[in-house]
């Protein structure tokens, strides 16, 4: 399939991937999308209420809303505006973690909070679940043979089609981790 045809197919299935501004235009966070988000009154009848707007709830809400459902998604944290709410600093990012008190036990337990949970729209995805680095295309060019690279690139493209995100941006990189 030609690249144009392939893109057209993706656009049809997943138009929200094109809601975000292109990285090349220098456009900033699309505040209008948050302001124009559909809201319901307490008395309104809706089709579904999703609790938690993370990787699961966020995608579910988007898919059902796109299919025409009346969707309410409840989220304890804010709808972050990355321009003002996020900083490029580890200690300054603690407010992104879900830090309600939890108890861990055993000899070698996994600590909760910063590692694996998040607060606000996006859930733990706002910090890539705490451990996912952003890969670059070049990361796949140095160690892989040509055949493996081709197969991996194909997989990345397939997974990227279902993830919203700036075109050619983070979506493909996140997807690459899923297959790698």
């Amino acid at each position, binding site marked *: 399939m030609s690249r144009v045809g392939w893109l057209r197919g993706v656009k049809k299935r997943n138009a929200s991937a094109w809601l975000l501004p292109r990285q090349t235009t220098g456009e900033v966070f699309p505040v209008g999308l948050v302001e124009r988000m559909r809201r319901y009154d307490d008395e309104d009848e809706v089709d579904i209420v999703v609790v938690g707007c993370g990787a699961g709830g966020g995608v579910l809400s988007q898919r059902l809303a796109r299919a025409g459902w009346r969707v309410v998604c409840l989220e304890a944290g804010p709808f972050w505006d990355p321009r*003002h*709410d996020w900083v490029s*600093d580890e200690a*300054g990012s603690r407010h992104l973690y879900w*830090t309600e008190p939890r108890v861990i036990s055993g000899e070698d*337990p996994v*600590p*909760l*909070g*910063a590692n694996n949970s998040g607060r606000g729209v996006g859930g733990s995805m706002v910090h890539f679940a705490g451990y996912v680095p952003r890969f670059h295309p070049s990361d796949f060019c140095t160690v892989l043979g040509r055949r493996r690279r081709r197969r991996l690139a194909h997989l990345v493209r397939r997974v990227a089609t279902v993830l919203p995100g700036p075109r050619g941006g983070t979506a493909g990189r996140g997807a690459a981790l899923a297959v790698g």
Partner: protein
Amino acid sequence: MARGATPGGRGRFGEFDVLGLADTWDDATKGVVLHRLVPPPHLRFFTTTEEADCRVLLDLLLGQDEEPKVPVIEEIDRRLVEAEGDGWHHAEMPPDAAAWRRSLRILREGCERDHGAAFHDLDVDIQMDVVDAVRTSDRFGDLPGRWVWNLWMRYALAAFYQHPWAWNEIGFGGPAYPRGYKNLGVGQLEPWERPDGDPRNPIPWSERLERSKRR
């Protein structure tokens, strides 16, 4: 560039001053980082008694022997007052704030029982022994030693390494947004980076420990 401040005036990255890079950070980040240089407020969580031992304990854990010191106890105090925890505590430990109080009480009572003096008044070699026993023992009072050690170090390190003076000491360039990095690779430096001028261990914990064992 003026020489950057480092904990204890110790450093091995020459004149490196991360604050000279502040204009390469976005405004939100710059605000958060520069606020750490504001003189800290009075303690609100630790009592005067707890503070005396805790200051000495934290200085020992972090090797902060001389001024200027990163205000570590103040940051821990702020986190405990504002309940800014990590989101978990171990089943054998109380929640963090209570665990800090109880571990400091065990430290105080243990020193009075075993050495007839307060922890902060003891000879530094004895303090080293006392603290290292927490790291290596099963129990510290009625608490598990390793989780007390985990609590102390977790809060101490987070408070120490969020401070630009600690970044100067280790040659860390701080926030990378929106500046980024361009020279990735072993031995490659960014234009603002300084080479490591002294490969020796700056905090000879193990040497000090060995010395106190030989005593």
